[in-house]
């Protein structure tokens, strides 16, 4: 692997876990360019001035990053000695990672490696030379920890899966390189079009694997299950019932819950984060409207939802995403002798009728999701996802090269880059690895 330190890196620089305010740092030549398209008032960014504004990006969701402060430090007058942008946001681990995710989508920005900010600070003379050994030890220790961490996450299934990607690409590369380096020999070469199938196979699996990051994260952070419904349908009552404690306020007034309340509980070995939300309806006072916004936001982050209806409330005035897993609950069954058909669960918060069935159904959803993944594998590391995403982009380039019939040397270039990226997760592939396979597989040499 090669050392690059002429590029732009990003990381969350506040300690892990949720604090009141989190700070993300972007350092390197493209730091300012990277924040530009996201920030509401980029023109205001002047060195050493905290600028208030909001962040927008299709992947960021609406209104979540309304209150943020961005500060630009022009190198060398920054902690790293390079151009540096600090973004302060409100919010927990989920939001921090979401933003980091969007930042490293930009091709010129990558996730910082272990101790990289400190390294840059040191190399640019921002840390006292007398601390050289300490910095060296720190980087060593962090790298060792990151490695241990990555190895643990790479255990078993994921390792085998990613290794199988690498193996398939190496196999293609062996065929192409043999053709390029030994075309004067008697080898039957595979037509380039035939190479597309394995590339597409790897590409599809990679996409699925990237998507499992969502679930991988869930295994760590808990499954998010918001309770959604019209005002007064009994969401807060259900919330309390499932938690077994009176956490949310219950009244007979529609529009009681304004802000979301969340609470995790262990459910059949998995953490489930139940979220009580504001009832959704057309009008309402300002606080309620923004509460509804939050509810919608919760829906977009949900693993699945519990949708509550009741005989004495309006039907839900919101269209839910089609692919969203939903448990349809008809509440207050004690009030209705002839309930309508088509609900998953008929429940009464008052009499607890239907509660066991509901719990069973929640359980089966959780288990279902846990079993999702590619060949039973899910990813939960940001670093893995980042690498897989860049790997995917490279495979797309490779696919284009094949379709455009650009020729083997282009395809080889794409596959090499793809393997380089994958090398960040597994081992690196060297030209000698490829040559070794050529010598083993083909009778080359006159």
């Amino acid at each position, binding site marked *: *692997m*090669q*050392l*690059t*330190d*002429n*590029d732009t890196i990003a990381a969350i620089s506040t300690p892990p876990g949720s604090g009141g305010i989190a700070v993300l740092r972007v350092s390197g030549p493209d730091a300012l360019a990277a924040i530009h398209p996201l920030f509401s008032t980029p023109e205001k960014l002047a060195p050493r001035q905290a600028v208030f504004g909001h962040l927008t990006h299709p992947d960021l969701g609406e209104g979540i990053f309304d209150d943020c402060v961005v500060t630009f430090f022009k190198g060398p007058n920054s902690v790293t000695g390079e151009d540096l942008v600090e973004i302060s946001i409100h919010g927990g681990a989920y939001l921090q990672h979401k933003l980091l995710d969007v930042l490293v989508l930009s091709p010129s920005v990558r996730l910082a*490696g*272990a*101790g*990289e900010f400190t*390294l840059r600070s*040191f*190399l640019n003379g921002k840390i006292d*030379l007398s601390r*050289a*050994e300490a*910095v*060296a*030890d720190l*980087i*060593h220790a962090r*790298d060792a920890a990151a490695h241990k961490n990555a190895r643990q996450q790479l255990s078993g299934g994921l390792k085998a899966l990613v290794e199988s990607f690498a193996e398939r690409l190496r196999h293609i590369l062996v065929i192409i*390189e043999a*053709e*390029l*380096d*030994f*075309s*004067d*020999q*008697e080898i039957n070469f595979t037509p380039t079009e035939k190479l597309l199938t394995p590339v597409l196979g790897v590409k599809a699996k990679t996409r699925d694997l990237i998507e499992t990051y969502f679930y991988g994260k869930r295994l760590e952070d808990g499954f998010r299950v918001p309770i959604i419904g019209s005002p007064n349908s009994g969401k807060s009552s259900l919330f309390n019932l499932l938690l077994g404690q009176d956490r949310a306020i219950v009244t007979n007034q529609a529009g009681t819950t304004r802000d979301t309340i969340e609470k995790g509980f262990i459910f059949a070995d998995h953490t489930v984060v139940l979220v009580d939300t504001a009832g959704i309806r057309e009008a309402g006072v300002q606080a309620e409207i923004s509460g509804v916004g939050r509810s919608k936001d919760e829906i977009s982050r949900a693993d699945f939802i519990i949708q509550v209806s009741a005989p004495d409330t309006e039907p839900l005035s919101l269209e839910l995403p089609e692919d969203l897993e939903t448990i349809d609950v008809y509440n207050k069954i004690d009030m209705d002798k002839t309930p309508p058909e088509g609900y998953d669960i008929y429940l009464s918060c008052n009499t607890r009728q239907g509660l066991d069935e509901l719990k069973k159904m929640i359980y089966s959803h959780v288990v279902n999701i846990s079993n999702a993944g590619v060949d039973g594998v899910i990813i939960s590391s940001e670093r893995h996802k980042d690498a897989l995403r860049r790997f995917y982009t490279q495979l797309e380039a490779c696919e284009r090269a094949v379709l*455009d*019939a*650009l*020729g*083997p*040397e*282009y395809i*080889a*270039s794409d596959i*090499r*880059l793809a393997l380089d990226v994958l090398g960040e997760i597994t081992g690196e592939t*060297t*030209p*000698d690895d*490829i*040559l070794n396979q050529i*010598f083993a597989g083909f*009778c*080359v*040499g*006159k």
Partner: protein
Amino acid sequence: MSENSAVSRETYDIIVVGGGHAGIEAALAASRLQKRTLLITMKIDALGRASCNPAIGGLAKGHLVREIDALGGEMARATDATGIQFKMLNRSKGRAVWSPRAQIDKHAYSAYMKVVCEEQPGLSLYEDEAVAVLTDPPETKIVGVETRDGTVFSCVALVLTNGTFLNGLIHIGDKSFSAGRIGESASIGITESLVKLGFDTGRLKTGTPPRIKRSSVDFSKTTIQEGDETPEPFSFTTKDFNPPNEACYITKTNPTTHDIIQGAIEFSPLFSGKIQGVGPRYCPSIEDKVVRFSEKSSHQLFLEPEWTDAEQLYVNGFSSSLPEEVQLASLRSVPGLEKVEFIRPGYAIEYDFFPPSQLKASLETKRVSGLFFAGQINGTSGYEEAAGQGLMAGINASLRVDGKDPFILKRSEAYLGVLVDDLITKDTDEPYRMFTSRAEHRLLLRYDNAHFRLSQKGFGLGLVSSDTYQAVAEDMATTEKAEAFLEKTYIRAVDLESLGLEQTTSKDSYSLANLLRMPRVEVEHLKPLLPDWFSSIKPSLLSLIATNSKYRGYIEREQLQVERLSRHQNTAIPPQIDYMSIQAISVEARQKLQRIQPETIGQASRISGVSPADVSVLLIIIKKIVSRETS
């Protein structure tokens, strides 16, 4: 010996030991750079002798020859002057992997090189065997060399290019005898003298096929293979190129051949365990092929003339160290070779080499200053790899004498850069050969732009004449002008058909450069749209311009990669770092770094087992050391 090569026993600036492809380039470069140079060789008549196949160039190797030419070396000119068949390989593939190859007249080649060396001002030749390198106690600086006849020559820099001669041992069946190559004695003493100085040494093996009598071959049973009808020369300086086009002949082995070989496998020194050295897998012996690829019922053989009207043919593909009778019996089962007669059998040769991780990027040894190694002594194989190293060693020995910084090519600049960097950062366990897949910047490092990449450097060094450099510079200017035109001239999509082109995307208009990026579109197709001055551009340059267009996107991406690479790639690592004491570096990396002692951060990062975190730590340590030294 001609007059100007008379030897005085005075001090030379540079002495080169060995008159093979590496030694010649080293000696010529050194003397052309105005260094008083002595070339010591065991046989002046064998200067530039091609010990193995009668061919120069080929895949990746052709690139090396072009680069040698661009830097002012001799190999390309010699090949153009003495080639008897020229062929561009990989012509059906993209131009990044096209590579020129030539069959040469071995006699003429050697004679050409002898004349060039003899006529080279400042270069003296001495016929004897070098037996010891002489150093100044405490043995860290070269002072001269001693030959078999007891003569001592002193020098500032010494370039060793001993090829396969160091303790060379030839094997044919169960017979083995000391030799440098067939008919020439081995060189004894240099290895021992280097080991005494603390150098590590190892043993490698290579082989060569039998040479047969042309009159004993029935060519009616073979397929004729000729060179290109319009051959391209290797050298930029070659004008009025009109070489012969001598045929080679192809035939094939069959199961009977393989049975005979299989039946006698126990007599092969390769399989009996007699040969210790490791041979190249890309150039296996016929017995190796038969055993390892038993599922293949046939292997191609090429019968190649070794010189014009040669009675001697080279049986390419039949390298062997089996007993002579077995070689003969098995070959006689091959169509066309039923009555074949040998001039001499194939053989394997074992020789000493010095693992090149003991060298700096200048090819100077880390242990002894002023001592340079080039060619097979570094564990490489191939004339071209040898010549390339010889040229680099000659240049660097000369810069050493002048007290100037070494001349080092980057991996992104030349195959020569890849070659040297690979050698010094990798552990070679078989003879190293160049392949295009070794170059991560393959699309950039093409045979057709070698002069664009390197001539200026060659000119700056003083090895490329100003006429040649001017001509290259003119080509570069023409290319730039043509590319600018192609970039800014647009054609409407509806007009594509008139050019005989299909519209493949939904764009309204295309720049001509854009069109060229499409597969199968060539400058030819754009003719009607080009101004008059385009027609005066020579075809080879037009092809280069089209190629630049075709690879542009990919090359830019590769370039970006180069730039993103650490600005610390070239940061020098101060000598004598005690790696073993750096706890923050992994144990494996500590050991490797301690042994290899890389000169730069870039080299360190390419050593296997050294992780980016190790490199980061190394950067920190260096920064501290450097600041301590300067304060």
